[in-house]
């Protein structure tokens, strides 16, 4: 394949780039104790929450950003970031869709998530996070009937303080890492889900995150608890408008699965990746961790990562309960000057725990991508099993794809298998498709989609369609 044709294919425009012109209630940039107090006060939080935040802040001050990832970026000025941005008039927040600013709805429309349709047709409740404050929550009542709590984390702190206090920070401690500590200090919103014992959540829960105001970091915090024998599937989509500056996104997601519970967490991440020269784009530094606390519990992460200038993300599972299961299915696509260092950690603590990792990386343009994963088998994890498959596909000769799998195995009854391959699209596969009359771009798209099949089939149906579309957009014009 000729390289200039490849070039063309690699080039594409960010299709979600537009800015919603809504007045924001934004604090001036900078971070100190008073900023945190301001956030806490704005959120009408109890005293313990403020103390918790400040504790995290003091730990953060003593920490340094991680340097081990295969990433390059200039140091971030944390005093130049504004830590709070909420749409104006918080007193009269819309109570239903009709009351929502039509411009906002239009934004969602452009994002391809028409709330009405989505809510009504697909039966999905959307807790839409616009910048930092949860604007509207649908289907609350239906969920209420089932006993499922689905609300913003701010609301949860006010309405269900015992639940929040019991679980917050128990999976990702305040000082877990630099970005988690920062998040713990300044998080502004995010989702809270509690599924009570024996309840199978009657619908898929979905949140769309979107970074809008310039220079505002987004620090959402999500906490999902599945009680005994409960089940939930949670979808998270992320996108952000085009900006010249780099914006920081440092989220924390904590999942807790008690006995026999099952949490499925799917992400389609399409933050703005910056332009061809690497200007602008989101720094996506996210800590996601699930705790399989109960026996036979199961946590499954599925992610399709196509956006962000830099992605630093390792959705992980702590497999404590006996026979608990952790899964990680990932497709990461980088193009232009994007950098991604992503993967997972499977920490096997309990007996007969099992984990599966399937990671597919596609690097194009001048991007750089790394899979970094840890499989740890503790001494008590008798009979633990892991299977890891990670494959990288390179499109063009200006990109890089790397694999860093760590295995720490301390039990003789464990079985751990890891396979990885790196290659380009095979010429004979391309030839075969073209010899059937399919043009090269479509052939590449077909082959790449085939390459990702094992992961896409883990996504809920509508997300799978979106993911395939996104993949094609990302690689649009990317093959000659």
């Amino acid at each position, binding site marked *: 394949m000729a390289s200039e044709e490849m070039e063309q294919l690699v080039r594409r425009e960010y299709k979600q780039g537009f800015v919603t012109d809504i007045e924001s209630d934004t604090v001036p940039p900078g971070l100190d104790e008073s900023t945190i107090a301001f956030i806490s006060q704005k959120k009408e939080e109890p005293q313990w929450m403020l103390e918790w935040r400040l504790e995290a802040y003091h730990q953060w001050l003593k920490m340094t950003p991680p340097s081990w990832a295969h990433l390059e970026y200039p140091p971030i000025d944390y005093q130049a970031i504004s830590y709070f941005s909420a749409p104006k008039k918080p007193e009269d927040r819309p109570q239903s869709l009709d009351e929502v600013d039509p411009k906002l709805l239009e934004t969602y429309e452009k994002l391809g998530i028409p709330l009405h349709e989505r809510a009504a047709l697909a039966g999905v409740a959307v807790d839409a996070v616009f910048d930092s404050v949860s604007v509207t929550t649908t289907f609350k009542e239906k969920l209420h009937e089932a006993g499922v709590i689905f609300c913003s984390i701010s609301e949860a702190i006010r309405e269900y303080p015992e639940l929040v206090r019991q679980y917050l920070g128990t999976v990702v401690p305040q000082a877990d890492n630099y970005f988690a500590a920062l998040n713990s200090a300044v998080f502004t919103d995010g989702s809270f889900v509690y599924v009570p014992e024996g309840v199978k959540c009657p619908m898929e829960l979905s949140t769309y995150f979107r970074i809008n105001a310039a220079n505002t970091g987004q620090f959402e915090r999500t906490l999902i608890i599945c009680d005994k024998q409960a089940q939930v599937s949670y979808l998270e989509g992320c996108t952000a408008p085009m900006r010249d500056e780099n914006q920081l996104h440092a989220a924390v997601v904590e999942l807790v699965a008690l006995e026999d519970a099952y949490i499925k967490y799917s992400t389609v991440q399409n933050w703005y990746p910056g332009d061809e020269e690497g200007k602008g784009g989101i720094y996506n530094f996210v800590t996601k961790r699930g705790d399989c606390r109960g026996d036979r519990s199961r946590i499954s992460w599925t992610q399709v990562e196509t956006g962000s200038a830099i992605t630093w993300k390792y959705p992980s599972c702590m497999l404590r309960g006996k026979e608990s299961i952790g899964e990680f299915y990932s497709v990461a696509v980088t193009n232009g000057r994007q950098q991604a260092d992503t993967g997972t950690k499977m920490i096997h603590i309990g007996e007969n725990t099992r984990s599966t990792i399937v990671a597919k990386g596609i690097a194009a343009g001048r991007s750089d991508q790394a899979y970094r994963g840890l499989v740890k088998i503790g001494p008590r994890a008798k009979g633990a099993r892991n299977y890891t498959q990670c494959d990288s596909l390179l499109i063009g000769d200006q990109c890089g794809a790397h*694999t*860093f799998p760590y295995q720490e*195995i*301390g039990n003789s009854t464990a079985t751990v298998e*890891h396979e990885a391959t790196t290659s380009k699209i095979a010429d004979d596969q391309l030839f075969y498709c073209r010899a059937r009359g399919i043009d090269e771009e479509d052939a590449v798209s077909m082959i790449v989609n085939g390459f990702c099949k094992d992961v896409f089939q883990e996504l809920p149906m509508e997300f799978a369609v979106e993911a395939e579309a996104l993949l094609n957009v990302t690689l649009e014009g990317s093959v000659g």
Partner: protein
Amino acid sequence: MSAPERFLERLTARRAEDPSWVAARRQAGAARFEALGFPTRRDEEWKYTDVRRIAEGDFALATDAAFDTARFDEQRLDIDAYRLVLVDGVFSAELSRLDGLPAGVSLEPLSRAMAANHEAVGGSLGRLAGVDFSPFTALNTAFAEEGVIVRLAPGTVVDKPIYVLLLSRANERPVMSHPRVLIEAGARAEATIVEHYSGEPDAANFTNVVTEVLLDRGAIVDHYKLQEAALTDLHVASIHVDQGRDSRFNSYNLNLGGALVRTDLVTDLNAEGAEAAYNGLFFVQGRQHVDNHTLVNHNAPRTFSNENYKGVLDDRSRGVFNGKVFVKKDAQQIEAYQNNANLLLSDRAEIDTKPELVIYADDVKCSHGATTGQLDEEAVYALRSRGIDEPMARALLTLAFVGEVMDKVRLNVIAERVERAVAGRLPERFNLADLVETAEAIQEA
């Protein structure tokens, strides 16, 4: 006094009479070592290996090369070879057999080469392993006063293996040695070189060896590192290989001995057609700790590498495998394969493995696999259904696991010795009293 200072004190005490250029080189090594200090587990390269046992040690430098002859005969490999022996880092003319070297082959102790201000010392030595590679290469550069220089003229095919035996004694006070090995193979030269580490059973010395191998166009070198030192010995080694066009380097890194062993093996495939094969085996017991770090740099198009490392771990031993394949930008049409398989025989053993691929070219075929597990229960069953008792079945399968690497070993003396060692040292529950005979009986049946 800090640990580096304590080590370097021995240097100032000893090396007053060096020629100025040697002194300058030592100085550079010492300065770098002092600046770096001993690595800690916070260094990614040393994440799983704690070298405090070395850093906290107090090691003297040996002054003689006396060694019990009976023990020597028992330890040495029974092969027809050109032989050079170091005892605690000191050259033993008495135990070495350097006569009858064919034309085009030079094999001499580093001290002689240094005394003669030999061009090899000033030129090639240190070209591949500078002071920046690790604190240990810096330390070696500061201290190296003995070692082995092998030089092969272009087109020379050496008729017999070159056998370097490094013995470690059970001294009253532990000693350290910093041997330096240089192998220079001219165009189309071919040789087999064995580095064999062995010694007295209670030796508790620190060996810090650096080997540099330069392969010119079309040269072929088989390099063996057979580590059979006492289970109390401390050992750090780095092997650096530079390969020219169409050259072949076959490494056999076979590790049975040592309390703490760290080996770094780095090959630079610098021209088209260069090919490297890494074969590795470690069998560890008790509280042994073995760390293998391998790196293949594909710096040129159409270069090939194939790596297969296997580990068997028993008791409370710990194994580390970190294998990295690096493909440079524009180094197209690369094939690189890497495999690491481990067998844990005990619940308290631990293996940490990290096979890495770092790839900047797109027309590549690279893959790696790492598996850790137990013996195939179906195979155990199959053997039992033929009337073999279970411990025996497990022992046989463990040998078979090791066999895949041993099959590649071309020096039979070494293959047999390692297999016997593995068989003889498998846990008692494996009932290995007469395993080899049984194995033979099965083969005949």
